[in-house]
C-alpha cells in the first residue's frame, strides 16, 4: 500500500451549464476493519480507516460523508452537483491516523 492516499476523481467530459453531474471519487486506502475477540469485545487498537470525506465545488462545500467504520478497501464515493460554472471539484479524505488526502478535478464546459 505504498500508494495510500492516491485519489482518482471522475467527472463527465461533456458538461453544459446547469447540468446535474455525478462525480465519482476513489481513494487508495487499506480501511482496516475493526476486529473483535472471541468474547465479541472490540480489540483495542487505533484502526486506520477514513472517517470524513468532504467535497467542495468552486470553493463552496457540496457534501460531507461521516463514516463510523470501515466500508471497503479503496472506497469509492459518488455525489451529484449542479454545474453552474467551470471550476474545480476538491475532495478531501481524513482518516483516523491523522492522514489527510486531497484531490482535485476540473469541471469544464463543452
Amino acid at each position, binding site marked *: 500500500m505504498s500508494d495510500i492516499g492516491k485519489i482518482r*476523481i471522475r467527472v463527465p467530459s461533456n458538461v453544459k451549464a446547469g447540468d446535474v453531474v455525478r462525480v465519482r471519487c*476513489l481513494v487508495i486506502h487499506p480501511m482496516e476493519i475493526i476486529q473483535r475477540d472471541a468474547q465479541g469485545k472490540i480489540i483495542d487498537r487505533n484502526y486506520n480507516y477514513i472517517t470524513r470525506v468532504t467535497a467542495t465545488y468552486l470553493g463552496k462545500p457540496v457534501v460531507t460523508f461521516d463514516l463510523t467504520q470501515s466500508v471497503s478497501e479503496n472506497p*469509492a464515493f*459518488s455525489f451529484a452537483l449542479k454545474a453552474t460554472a467551470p471550476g474545480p471539484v476538491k475532495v478531501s479524505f481524513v482518516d483516523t491516523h491523522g492522514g489527510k488526502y486531497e484531490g482535485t478535478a476540473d469541471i469544464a464546459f463543452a
Partner: protein
Amino acid sequence: MRRLPSLRWAALALLAAGCALTARESPPLASSAWTSRAIPEARGEVKVTPDGKRTAVRYKGWTTRDFGAFRTYAYDDARLEPAVQKAVMPASVVGDPTRGRALFLDRQKGPCTGCHLVPGDDVWPAGSVGPDLSTLGDRKLPDAYLYQQLFDPRVTFPVTVMPPWGAQGTFKPEELVHLVAYLQTLRGPAPPEKDTDRNPFTRSKPVGYGDNLDPTNNPAVVRAEEAQALWSARGPKGKACADCHAGGPKTAMRGVATRYPRVVAEHGRVMSLEDFLAVHAEATTGRALPSESGENLDLTLLVKMASDGLPVAVDTTSPAARAAIERGKASFYRRVGERNHACADCHTPDRGANKFLGGRFLGDVTAGLTRHFPTWRTSQNDVWDMRKRFQWCMTPLGANMQAADAVEYAELELFLTTFDVGKPITAPGIRH
C-alpha cells in the same frame, strides 16, 4: 498397373511431409503429462488421511468435498458416463407432499428450484433452465413416469440437461417418492406473482456493471495500476520484463494477448497467457510465477490490458491448433461429475444459455465468454482469471477440478476463445 509406382511415390512424399510437420511443430499433448506449476490450492489435489478420509484441496472457502467417485475432465479419466437405469417406484413408501416440497427446495440436494419454477414466495431464486412446473399436476402424468424422470430421465430423453438424480445417488428412492407426491399437488391456476423478479421468465436480465476501465467502478483497474511495478522489478536472475521488452507493457505487449491461448511448440501444448507466464517468467527472470498466484494474475492483467480494444486473433487453422480445438470441443460436450452435466448444458443457446440458473444469468458461449478475463467478480470481491472460473464451475457439476494450468483446461479455453475471434478484448472485465 503402370500408375502404381507413382502412387507409391506420392504416399512416400506425404509421409515425409508429415514427418517434417511433426519435427517442426510437435503436436500438443493429448494426455495430462504436464507437471503443474500452480499454487498448492489450485492443483486439484486430494489429500487422504491415514483413516482413509479424502478431502479435496481447494481455494479458501470452497468446499473440500471429494468428488472422486465421479467422472472428470482429465483426458486420462477413461470412465464412461453412468449407465442409463430403469427404475421401479418403491410401493412400500407413501409420498408426503410436504417433505417433497422441502426436498425440492433443499440447497444441499438440487436444488430443483435452480432450474424449475414452482409456486411460493419462499421459492427464491427460481431458475428457467428447465420447464416451469407450476401446473405440472394438471397434466395427470402417471406417478411411475414422474419417478423415472427424476431417477434417470435419459430413459425417455437421451440428451437431456436434467441430471439422473436417483441413478447418481443424490436423492434416495424414498425421497424421490416424496418429490413425486409434491409434484402431483401442483395444480393450476398458478397464484398471481407479488414480485415479477421471482419468476425467471419475467425477471429483468442483467445489463452490465458500467465502464470496465473506470477505476472508481472496477477495482481490477486499481489492481492493474499497482501491478505496474512488477514489470520492471528484477527477479533472482537480475533480469526484469522491461530489460528484454522495451517501451513499457502498453507498447511492448500490444497485441500479444490477442494470440492466446496458442500452441507453444517449445512446450508441446496449448498455453494461455497465464500458463505461458508461469514458465517464461521463471526461465528468464528467475521469479516464480505459479498459476493462480497474485503476481501471475497481476502480470496477466498488464499484458492483456495492453491489447484492449484489439480483436481476438487466435490461431484456428494450423493442424496442431485444429486438433487442440477439437479436443476442447469434446470437453465442452463431455458429461462429467455427480450431475452428469456438460458445459454445453448451461452455455449453449439451445440448452441453458441466456436463461436463469437460480438467480444467475447463464452466459452464452457463442457470444464469446473469454475476452473480458481476468475479470472483477462483484460476488467474490476478487479478480479471477478464466481458469479459476473453470475450477469454480466444477463445484456445481460435482467433479474434482484439474490443476489451473492443466492441458485439458487450456484446450477447452482455446475452444471457447474461437467464439471471441474478431471481437475486441475488454480486460479487466466486471461481472457478477
